């Protein structure tokens, strides 16, 4: 059974699910069931094919539309990496969404839209020409608009931002398509490669800029990132996990496509390089680093938990861009590794948060607190996700960031690494903020009786959590896939074994690090259990300078509001959403320019006659000057 070589199979499976889910959307459980089944089958096909290792890189499947135009689909290991991360995540998120979506938003075909978006994302990774890419890109983008806006305040603004930046992204792809079509007369990826090989510097730079606009927007690269917090903050909770974990990866995929496939290392290096770092690569890397920093610092200042995670997502994707820009085997492997990591941990983070929101209906950190006491399993999953996001070594999060750091160091990029370190310091800050605000601290009275998340929500989270921990021991396992993917884009993977990774400047052994941690654990446990267990006391039994808390005081005893106030005071002026304000300015100015027509179309009839006359004179003059009139 080698289904994936017939890429349409996947699309048909998923499309059937999407169609039925859309048609049966009134019967929510049917729609959910159909979506889960079809996406699970698709995920099974993807995993099965991947395990068999039979990805035919050169087989292309065509669907003719006009006589000289066909849609082409195909897979290779490179796109398989993205395809797998999206397709495997989808059924997990769908299972997760069973419970929370049972009661919510009866008037929107959640599952249908979800599945369409999934079909789009899967199609994007399988497209083999720019037209197909664009087609699926749009298919992926549009349903999301309807999924934004679950009734939270200002979701309208989020929809508008998403819509606007979605259009920007689509225009970017159309621009790329035009360039390639102009240069080679076709729009297949091979044409794009040829176009870059033959093209001038200007074309290549245009390609990079358009690529940043098209794919950077989706992957929330600064300065195109401002839609992301709004959109992630307002989509349905189950969908956000897929949105941030899965769909944003298509942007990364596109960016890789532009930089590493279309343009390619050879061309990049032809512009000179310092230690193997190219100017274009440095530009991308520095943009990525700044994105990581902005995302981290903005995340640190959020009270809205979903926005916090959204900014964190921006920050993490910034790391991937650093890896992409720095290039070379180590950093590229790191970027691809981080794609897999981010898919997993961001999904589990949004799922965990979604479970809390499902149980409490509250998403503001200052109103939550103490969830460990009522939702311990959710907390564990969330904690592992946070650890992975902050690259704490006991999860798989470190391996990818380590590769990116080492890649940058190999190339001697001094300035990137401190920025990234600062971004990761910010990551610790926001990680702890969400832990402290949501799970630690005192439990509010009204949340005393809530239960653990339902089993359907827990299972997907636990699966991802286990994966994150297990892979921490054996970082070589994903590297197997990554090395094949890198071979398909003409790169060599860094040295690795099952348990350790090597770069030019250092090494990292997941197993040894874990063993060290285990050694620490044994010592700590011995130390801990040498004495009797502690006596459990009530949460309100805390040091209050002898003062008895006023009844219901615990609501005010949760320190989460303006958690980092001293820094907010200091950093706000510098991170005061000036990119967002810049875009608002662009919007305003273009509105004013657009309104200029009032001066022409002022409703004056004589004016129109004069206009007609003027146009006549003008055209006459053009004819006289250029057309050989007279």
């Amino acid at each position, binding site marked *: 059974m080698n289904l994936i070589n017939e890429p349409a199979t996947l699309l048909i499976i998923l499309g059937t699910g999407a169609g039925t889910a859309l048609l049966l959307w009134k019967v929510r459980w049917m729609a959910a069931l159909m979506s889960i089944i079809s996406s699970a089958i698709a995920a099974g096909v993807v995993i099965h094919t991947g395990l068999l290792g039979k990805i035919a890189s050169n087989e292309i499947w065509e669907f003719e539309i006009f006589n000289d135009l066909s849609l082409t689909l195909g897979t290779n290991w490179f796109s398989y990496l993205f395809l797998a991360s999206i397709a495997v995540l989808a059924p997990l998120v769908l299972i997760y969404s069973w419970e929370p979506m049972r009661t919510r938003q009866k008037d929107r075909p959640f599952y249908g839209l979800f599945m369409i978006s999934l079909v789009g994302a899967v199609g994007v990774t399988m497209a083999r020409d720019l037209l197909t890419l664009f087609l699926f890109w749009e298919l992926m983008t549009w349903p999301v608009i309807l999924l934004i806006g679950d009734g939270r305040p200002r979701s309208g603004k989020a929809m508008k931002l998403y819509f606007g930046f979605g259009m920007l992204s689509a225009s970017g792809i159309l621009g790329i398509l035009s360039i390639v079509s102009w240069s080679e007369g076709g729009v297949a990826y091979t044409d794009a490669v040829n176009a870059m090989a033959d093209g001038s510097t200007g074309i290549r730079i245009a390609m990079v800029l358009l690529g940043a606009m098209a794919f950077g927007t989706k992957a929330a690269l600064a300065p195109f990132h401002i839609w992301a917090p709004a959109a992630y903050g307002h989509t349905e909770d189950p969908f956000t996990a897929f949105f941030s974990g899965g769909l944003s990866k298509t942007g990364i995929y596109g960016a890789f496509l532009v930089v590493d496939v279309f343009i390619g290392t050879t061309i990049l290096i032809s512009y000179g390089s310092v230690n193997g770092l190219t100017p274009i690569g440095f530009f991308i890397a520095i943009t990525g680093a700044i994105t990581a920093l902005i995302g981290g610092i903005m995340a640190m200042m959020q009270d809205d938990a979903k926005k916090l995670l959204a900014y964190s997502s921006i920050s993490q994707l910034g790391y991937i861009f650093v890896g992409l820009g720095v290039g070379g085997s180590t950093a590229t492997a790191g970027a691809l590794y981080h794609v897999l990591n981010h898919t997993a941990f961001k999904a589990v983070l949004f799922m965990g948060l979604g479970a809390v929101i499902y149980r409490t209906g509250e998403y503001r950190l200052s109103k939550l607190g103490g969830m460990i006491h009522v939702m311990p399993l959710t907390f564990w999953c969330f904690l592992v996700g946070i650890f992975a996001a902050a690259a704490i070594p006991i999860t798989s999060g470190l391996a990818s960031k380590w590769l990116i750091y080492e890649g940058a160091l190999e190339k001697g990029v001094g300035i990137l690494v401190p920025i990234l370190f600062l971004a990761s310091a910010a990551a610790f800050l926001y990680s702890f903020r969400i832990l402290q605000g949501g799970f630690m601290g005192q439990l509010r009275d009204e949340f005393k009786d809530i239960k653990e998340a339902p089993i359907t929500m827990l299972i997907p989270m636990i699966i991802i959590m286990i994966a994150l921990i297990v892979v921490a021991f054996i970082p070589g396992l994903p590297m197997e896939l990554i090395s094949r993917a890198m071979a398909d884009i003409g790169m060599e993977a860094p040295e690795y074994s099952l348990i350790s990774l090597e770069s030019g400047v250092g090494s990292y052994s997941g197993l040894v690090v874990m063993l060290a941690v285990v050694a620490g654990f044994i010592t700590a446990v011995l130390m801990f259990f040498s004495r009797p267990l502690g*006596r459990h006391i009530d949460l309100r*039994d805390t040091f209050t300078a*002898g003062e008895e808390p006023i009844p219901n005081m*615990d609501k005010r005893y949760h320190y989460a509001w303006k958690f980092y106030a001293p820094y907010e005071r200091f950093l706000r002026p510098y991170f005061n959403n000036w990119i967002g304000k810049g875009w608002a300015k662009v919007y305003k100015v273009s509105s004013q320019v657009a309104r200029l027509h009032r001066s022409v179309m002022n409703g004056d009839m004589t004016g129109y006659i004069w206009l007609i006359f003027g146009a006549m004179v003008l055209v006459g003059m053009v004819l006289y000057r250029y057309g050989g009139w007279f």
Partner: protein
Amino acid sequence: MSEDEPTGGLLDQDGRPITNLPERGFVRKVADWASARSMWLLWYCTGCGAVELPPSFTSRYDMERYGIGPMATPRQADIFLITGYLSVKTVKRIVRSYEQMQDPKYVLGHGSCTIDGGMYWDSYATVKDVGLYIPVDLYIAGCMPRPEAIFQTFEKLQDMIIKGEAVGWKKYKDNYSWYRKNQDNVFKRGPDWALEEPELR
């Protein structure tokens, strides 16, 4: 007050509870030795008593050479130092802080006020005897006691700890209902008291 027998303990001639000394193994003896050498204080400073403490721990007398030092919260502290008189209003805070400390814990009454109300003996708002509410291991008499007196008390307490005689914490547990009754005479525990009663442990 002598009508009600304390639950687990005996009464002395003043009608105050006394308690049996606990058995100690070797490890406990070593731990008690360490406790005696490392005493962390929680100060309850109400008024004039506190002025004698700065000289005690600054360079003039240097409390730290005995391993004695101030601590921030009752959780970390071993010794509860009540420096000065208690008012009716503050007993509640005293009891709460005391119950938050962890066994073994010792209480020192510092100054005459803790013994009999001192110069405020005739005030309606003064608690005359701290020992009615929490078990006091040692009193430091005087108004004010000089640092020398304080140091003498510490040495005495060290002795008692090493010998296993400083058992106020056990006395409190054993005779909780006696203390509790005295406490209830003075203040009411609110709904958010949240502290476990030692009896129930």
